[in-house]
């Protein structure tokens, strides 16, 4: 598949910022699997010219009827998109699972941990869930 960024995967192995332009069904299926495993938003460009940004939460692979399901970031309704409508998939959103390992947490300086804890607590307070 055509990946518009020469990306080695980096230290985290995250596909963040990669853009896939599949040229076959198997390449598309591969890109969809990556997007399904990705804990961030992707932008799906359709052959119709429409572009959708959101979280790809499901896919159903069954030949010509294959489709993905995506929660658009600006809508509460899930969208179902057939594979054959997809032109590109870009990993545009932040990978929310990156850099949050236990080891990272322990390795941080006490001051950094306290700052991060305070940030999470402040966010929860701002949302009224503390």
């Amino acid at each position: 598949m055509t990946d518009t960024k020469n990306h080695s995967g980096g230290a985290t192995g995250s596909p963040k910022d990669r853009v896939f332009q599949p040229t076959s069904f198997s390449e598309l299926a591969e890109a969809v699997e990556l997007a399904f495993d990705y804990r961030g938003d992707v932008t799906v460009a359709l052959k119709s010219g429409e572009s959708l940004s959101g979280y790809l939460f499901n896919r159903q692979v069954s030949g010509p009827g294959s489709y993905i399901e995506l929660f658009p970031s600006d809508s509460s309704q899930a969208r179902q998109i057939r594979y054959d409508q997809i032109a590109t998939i870009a990993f545009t959103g932040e990978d929310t699972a990156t850099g949050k390992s236990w080891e990272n947490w322990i390795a941080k300086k006490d001051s950094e941990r306290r700052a991060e804890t305070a940030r999470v607590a402040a966010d929860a307070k701002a949302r009224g869930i503390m």
Partner: protein
Amino acid sequence: MAIVMKYVLVQKLSGVKRYPLVLMLEPLFRCNLACAGCGKIQYPDHVLDKRLTPEQCWAAAEECGAPIVSIPGGEPMIHPEMPTIVRGLVAQQRYTYLCTNAILMERKLDEYQPSKFLTFSVHMDGLKEEHDLAVCRDGVYDVAVRAIKAALKRGYRVTTNTTLFDDANPERVRKFFDAMMELGVEGMMISPGYSYQKAPDQQHFLKRERTRELFSRILGNPKKGWQFNQSPLFLDFLMGRREYQCTPWGNPTYNVFRWQKPCYLLQEGYAKTFRELMESTEWDHYGTGRNEKCADCMVHCGYEPSAVEDTFGTMSGFGRTVKLTVLPTSR
């Protein structure tokens, strides 16, 4: 738990091979903690802001028919309609376990009514030092203890749920059990930590041999007062005294993405209906020795239903369950 026993016996007498025991209902993924080992909350904000409605929750419970509903998340008490959701599940006479980190619990207690069908299952990963470290925030242990005391005083059923990781100190865990029983909780639930497929922390979870060793040291000489709110055969399994294969359909998971395939921990896709989940999931592809993702898993959501099946499906299982229930220290 006559309702649960009756349910299991009816399934067995009806020849139902695969039946759900506990619905894992995740009405939201948003949490007010950000624990390093948790793989449930790493989503974009717009996904974290999604909520199941009470009607969706009740329909999911009816659709799968499980007699027990466990409500994890995210932190369920963040959901503004959680008291309504719980009331509906209690009205359906389902044993409902509201799994909470207890940060909001004391403040929101009055929104719930004590019932034999409602239990607050408070997340406690150890004594103060271990728990606050596990949840990445100081002071949460003390908040939880205060909430447990307040709930017990008002007549609610309270249990604890504990996940143990590979750095657990058996002696400290035993002291933690003592502390929880002294608080007056009805029972404790324990499970080994196992890597969520998408959890950021993949190195800290327990391997199978280490799990058996750890749980043998913790549970091998149980104290008389300890009460566990789970199958004694599952505890045997954790100690390596019984072998089980996974029963992933035993604890089906429903969340904002619908029915999760195949289990609470793995996310291989989603089904639109419970029936589709049961009929389209290739169950034989999952479990120890069948799938490398399942290799080290001994988690309650897959293996506690196996233990229950053993109790009601074999004479030895039934006999041992009765023995350990009557004489827990005979282990």
